[in-house]
């Protein structure tokens, strides 16, 4: 599963991270876990690319980070979404939905798949 969704995730990992941070700020593991739980393990993000992706988003000021204490009393780096990040997520989500809808329409067009 992970291998087959890997390519797809490359382009969309940013949107997934932003969406995960929309409700509340959390650490890298929290983001990965939220995506897994929300999609009931359909999407499993590649953890090796999660942290570099977080750095890229932070460089673009779509998210911000600071050190905090986790609920099991460990030092952890917490990420939160910025105002720019919210705006970016809205635009990207709309484009993604349009794109997914278009692909779905194509796939449903006649002749039907066997």
């Amino acid at each position, binding site marked *: 599963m992970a291998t087959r969704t890997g390519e797809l995730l490359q382009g969309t990992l940013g949107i997934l991270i932003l969406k995960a941070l929309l409700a*509340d*700020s*959390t*650490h*890298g*593991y*929290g983001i*990965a*876990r*939220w995506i897994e*739980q929300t999609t009931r393990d359909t999407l499993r993000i*590649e*953890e*090796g690319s999660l*942290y*570099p992706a977080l*750095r890229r988003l932070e*460089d673009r000021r779509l998210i911000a980070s*600071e*050190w*905090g*204490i*986790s*609920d*099991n009393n*460990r*030092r*952890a*780096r*917490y990420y939160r979404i910025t105002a720019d990040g919210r705006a970016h997520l809205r635009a990207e989500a709309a484009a993604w939905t349009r794109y997914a809808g278009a692909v779905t329409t194509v796939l449903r067009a006649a002749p039907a798949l066997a």
Partner: protein
Amino acid sequence: MTRPTPPAAPRPATWRRYLRFWGPNVGADVRDELQFHIDMRTREFEARGMDPQDARQAALARFGDMARVDAALQSHDRRVDRTASVREFATNVGADVRHAVRALRRAPGFATAAILCLALGTGATATVFAVVDALLLQPLPVQHPGNLVVIATTSSGMTLPGDDSYQNYLDIQGTHAVLEDAAASLTDAFNIRVGNQTDLRTVQAVSENYWPMLGVRPVLGRTFTPEEARARAPFAVIGYRYWQQAFGGAPDVVGRAVSVDGIPLTIAGVAPRDFTGAHPMIIPDLWVPVTLLYEIDPSTHDQMQRRAGGGFRIIGRLQKGVSLATAQSALNVLATHLQHQYPADDEGKRFVVQRELRARPDIAVSDLVPRVAVVFMALTTLVLLIACANVASLMLARANGRRTELAVRSALSRRRATSASTRRSRTHRATSSAPCAGRHRKDQGRVPAAGLDLVICFRGGNYADRVLFVPQREFVPRDILPAVARP
């Protein structure tokens, strides 16, 4: 899933603050972040019933290439940290300088104390270094100072090498196998009369080849030639300082008359400003050919003829490609020869040859110089360190008094107190120190320690941040904030 509580202020172990003297530890932060991820995943797998060993393995396998990600994150974070601090520094410097000047004007007592401390510290160090530099390190301002040597004499009764007689000098000058040439000078004080004014001045009687051998060009007029010296032509060369003092730097000084102990001489030229003789500790006012010495001071007649005694400092030039050791052995041969030929005068006489730069300030004591110089430089460096420490403790004491102000500042600031705002107040402190240090540094051209105290201030300030101001959020009761915010 369980959401963590909103992040509280991090609370690292107290002693860890002392490890952060050189700023944030990027490597440790990246490791902490990734380790946290692995630990959480391991816990998740354990909760699903895996045994701890397997859970850890599975978590690592799930993550992928840990080392590669770690390296990529570290290099990214280092770059970000660098550019962030550079940008922050650049944008803050202007405001900080203004803030520093204001703060110093608000506390003139503190400013005076700090300025005095640093002025004394850097002043003392710079002075000692300037003396050491001029006396021991700078080569003579003559042609090819590298192959100049000083030749001194020890006789049976004397342990320290010193001057020799003129007759022995002539023999030393004759060792052309090792010495290209050698010049001798005798320094004494004589009464010099210019117009109606007479004062006691330092006069150097020099061998006829003194000027051509050193290759020094006068700033005004000319020097006396060997032919003139041999013909006892009454010409003198005056020193730059003496020219300024006695003649007010008059451009028409060449050709004027001076008299040395009653003997009338004509000024032939003025030595250049940086040339003050071949001995670093003696600044002659006037040079005369040694052939005139007898006329100026008849009592020197015997001295010029005898081989015993001394008075003449000998400086020579090594032949090209001749080493100091070769020159020394040639002079040993000469010494043995002289001992045999003139047993009455030259008994037990030996010659010592040393490079001119190594014969500072005088060949008699130059062996001790490295040790003495180290002691003096260490002492003055200590003085500078003490001055820095004084100012640092002054600043600490003052910072202690400003705790409330700093706490309010950081509490009102939009950013977290422990991140950028302290970096900014650290820049404040570094720039507060700069004007102090700058005022007296203007005229200290060559101060090697110039940037050092700024570094100490900057890093020390950084350090003080972590030790003094980390817990500052606790100093502000929450209810102070509305009161401060209200006008």
